[in-house]
């Protein structure tokens, strides 16, 4: 931890930070045999062994190539490595819910605002199950910065986030590798008006000009069998859920537009507890509140009216899916966003007041979660609880694991039918507010959307070219981009970088609990060569999980990682130098060059 906080006035002394670090990033959870076995092994002179959880090439062609490159280099430095290949939902289950992994390769959905780092890194989530902090990372200094950035705006916030990013580059609970180019292809003869930047969001499917049914291809079949907005394992990104559900605000090309909310008024009230250190007030000692008026006469797809009490219910339910009937069970998604909301008060059917734990930037992000129908989810809990014995293990009980088909939302598209592993058909929701004359927002396609599973990127491109589909809705694999034809009716669509490939570490267990060990591992990753050979240059290497203006100058990519550069050159690992990094971190080698466990 040879880095110093970049802001002198952050209120946390360097000493307390060091103490927090020394206390260990690992969070002690309940004992398990596996861990006991590891500890025993490492006490002896056994070779250190790690597993890398990865996806089959069918699901993500780049993922396994990154994993194998890392595997090769780990073996060169004397570590015994095994690849643990899982299907996409099984990988997420192992990592997010079961925490059964050492290292894994993933593509993080990220978000339009760096506040997603709060969800990913805050220590209160380290023992939870879901997308929140799957690494088990806990560091008091990070917590403070992550909370502060929520209470700030503008330059001050950016500075705090810069400190988080610097800390991240040093501590490495996960290591970002690159931002893949996000490309799709679409036909222009059936539909026009493609807005390439918004295709990962609901806005990509609104305002298209064309009469028929939009036929979109997806490479991932999970959505054909699970449309549960709470599921941790059924998807990385929320695109489909955003078509079926509305949120108060909606992100479009980085800006937030009022969505289910007709008007949003931000105000500040003096906070009584402003002197308290745990205060949620902003820098001026005020508490942010938002007064929201919902659009008139909105209804869920089953005809029930959507009111302010559904909004209040949503935030309460996501915070504790058992609604107080069992030990607290927060949803395995949207965790950081819900945490940002202090209280929701329904004034009447359409008006509500939301009290936030911070400033506008992070507050807005909290208002983008899908609004759920109270009558549907309350029923589900009542049913589950009716047999007397009700337990709701986080992320692993019916509310989060059910397929939730048919889904009842209020979004611009309504579920029509599905056939597992084949397709999902959504029809236009005729009552949606975007169709009103007074509302100036993109309208859903009249004929609805059919999402068909086509397992390959190359075959998907060919199918769109042949006129067999209008759009490749899934992001295309890098290797297939060369197959995009240069024909007049096919357009290539490119969205800005947001999701990133990364290596996640399970910092709960030794030796991965040791940041020096993690740093030595990240120096085995040759990001430049990965981008060149695995992504065919259709990606941008990175040292940090954010893009554009959010990247601090000192963390900008300058041909190599500015903090932990690859040990080697031209794609070749300098084995001796790499090994000495492990030795400096306190690890030993035996005579056969095998890295031994223990310090």
């Amino acid at each position, binding site marked *: 931890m040879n880095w110093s906080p970049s802001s002198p006035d952050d209120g946390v002394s360097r000493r307390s930070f060091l103490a927090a670090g020394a206390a260990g990033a690992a969070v002690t959870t309940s004992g398990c045999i596996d861990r006991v076995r590891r500890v025993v092994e490492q006490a002896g002179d056994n070779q250190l062994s790690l597993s890398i959880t990865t996806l089959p*090439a069918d699901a993500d062609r780049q993922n396994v190539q990154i994993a*194998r490159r890392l595997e090769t280099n780990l073996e060169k430095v004397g570590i015994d490595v095994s690849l643990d290949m899982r299907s996409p939902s099984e990988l997420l289950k192992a990592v997010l819910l079961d925490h059964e992994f050492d290292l894994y390769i993933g593509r993080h959905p990220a978000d339009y605002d760096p506040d997603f780092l709060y969800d990913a890194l805050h220590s209160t989530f380290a023992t939870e199950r879901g997308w929140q902090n799957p690494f088990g990372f806990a560091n008091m200094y990070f917590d403070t910065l992550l909370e502060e950035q929520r209470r700030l705006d503008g330059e001050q916030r950016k500075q705090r986030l810069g400190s988080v990013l610097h800390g991240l580059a040093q501590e490495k609970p996960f290591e970002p590798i690159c931002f893949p180019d996000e490309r799709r292809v679409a036909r222009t003869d059936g539909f026009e008006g493609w807005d390439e930047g918004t295709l990962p969001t609901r806005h990509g499917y609104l305002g298209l000009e064309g009469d028929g049914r939009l036929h979109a291809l997806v490479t991932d079949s999970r959505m054909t069998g699970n449309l549960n907005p709470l599921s941790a394992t059924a998807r990385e990104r929320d695109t489909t859920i955003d078509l079926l559900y509305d949120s108060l605000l909606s992100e479009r090309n980085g800006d937030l537009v009022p969505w289910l909310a007709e008007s949003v008024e931000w105000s500040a009230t003096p906070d009584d507890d402003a002197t308290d250190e745990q205060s949620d007030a902003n820098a001026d000692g005020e508490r942010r509140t938002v007064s929201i008026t919902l659009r008139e006469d909105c209804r869920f797809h089953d005809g029930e009216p959507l009111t302010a009490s559904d909004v209040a219910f949503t935030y309460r339910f996501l915070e504790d899916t058992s609604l107080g009937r069992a030990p607290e069970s927060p949803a395995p998604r949207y965790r950081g966003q819900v945490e940002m909301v202090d209280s929701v008060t329904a004034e009447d059917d359409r008006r509500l007041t939301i009290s936030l734990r911070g400033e506008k930037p992070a507050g807005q992000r909290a208002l983008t979660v899908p609004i759920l129908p109270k009558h549907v989810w309350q029923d589900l809990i009542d049913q589950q609880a009716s047999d007397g014995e009700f337990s709701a293990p986080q992320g692993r009980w019916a509310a989060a694991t059910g397929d939730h088909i048919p889904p009842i939302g209020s979004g611009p598209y309504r579920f029509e039918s599905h056939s597992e592993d084949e397709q999902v058909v959504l029809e236009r929701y005729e009552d949606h507010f975007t169709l009103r004359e007074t509302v100036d927002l993109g309208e859903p396609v009249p004929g609805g959307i059919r999402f068909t599973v086509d397992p390959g990127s190359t075959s998907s491109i060919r199918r769109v070219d042949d006129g067999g589909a209008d759009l490749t809705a899934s992001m295309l694999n890098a290797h297939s981009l060369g197959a995009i034809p240069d024909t007049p009716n096919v357009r290539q669509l490119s969205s800005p970088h947001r999701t990133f490939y990364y290596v996640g570490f399970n910092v709960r267990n030794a030796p991965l609990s040791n940041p020096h060990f993690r740093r030595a591992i990240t120096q085995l990753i040759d990001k430049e060569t990965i981008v060149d050979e695995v992504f065919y240059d259709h990606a941008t290497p990175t040292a940090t999980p954010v893009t554009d203006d959010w990247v601090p100058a000192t963390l900008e990519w300058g041909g190599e990682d500015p903090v932990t550069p690859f040990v080697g050159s031209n794609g070749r690992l300098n084995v001796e130098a790499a090994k000495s990094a492990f030795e400096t971190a306190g690890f030993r080698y035996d005579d056969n060059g095998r890295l031994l466990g223990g310090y």
Partner: protein
Amino acid sequence: MLAEVLTQVALVIGILLPISVLVFIGRERLVRTRAEWRDRLRTNAPVIAVLLVVLLINRVARQTAPELSRKVGVHLTATFYNVEGEFILLFKSVETPELTAYFASVYVFGYTFLLIFPVIAYFMLSDTRTFRRLLAAYALNYAIGLVLYILIIAYGPRNVMPAELTERMLYDTNPQYQYLTREVNANTNVFPSLHTSLSATVAAFASMTRSAYPKWFPIAVVLAASVAISTMYLGIHWGIDVAAGLVLAAACVVLSDKLVGRWSLSDLFGDRFEGLSDRLPRLRREE
């Protein structure tokens, strides 16, 4: 897209079969079969039923087995990869577009033909035992294969080494075929290679019947060997899967000899079944 590929397969098989019947089976057997087919069908009915039931179970299991497999299965991708490493990359040195096209068509068309033709050829034999043994061996292959697929979860080489295999991966060179294979199998079903075991089964039978069908024997052996190699060349199976396929084939051929003719259905079901199978051809006649 699936319909397109299916039509293609049907077309190729539809051309190959009549030609092979003329070349390998000959007029004389055709004439005799025309006179005896009802009797043969009656004798063969039970084993045909068994095979159909196994195929039906296979079809149903495609929906339910993955769930069961997730619960009881063992993940072995890493083990296979650790044991044989990059063995199948051996084919890299002989890789050409022509060879890739050959193995791709052998994998899809050659294999289908290899499985269907013997069924016709052995039905044409007066001695029905070979036919019954063949179908029993098919059923055993599928049944044992299904159990192993549930118990062992493993991804094939193409899922582990996509970059090294990219020039000859079936779904890269012929993406349309993935619509077909997706209908038939899940990508975690690689151990054992049923392509190999069924082809080897056919080759073993071709060897046993080479006095009856001398010309078929060398063709079957070459085709079967090509199918086995194609599964590795195309990156679909590990060498271990192919080896296991050969063992499975041997087991099924031996077992079919032990099992066929062991039970008589008329003993088991008595007259009721006799009556039923008597009526079967008569119903046909009335049409």
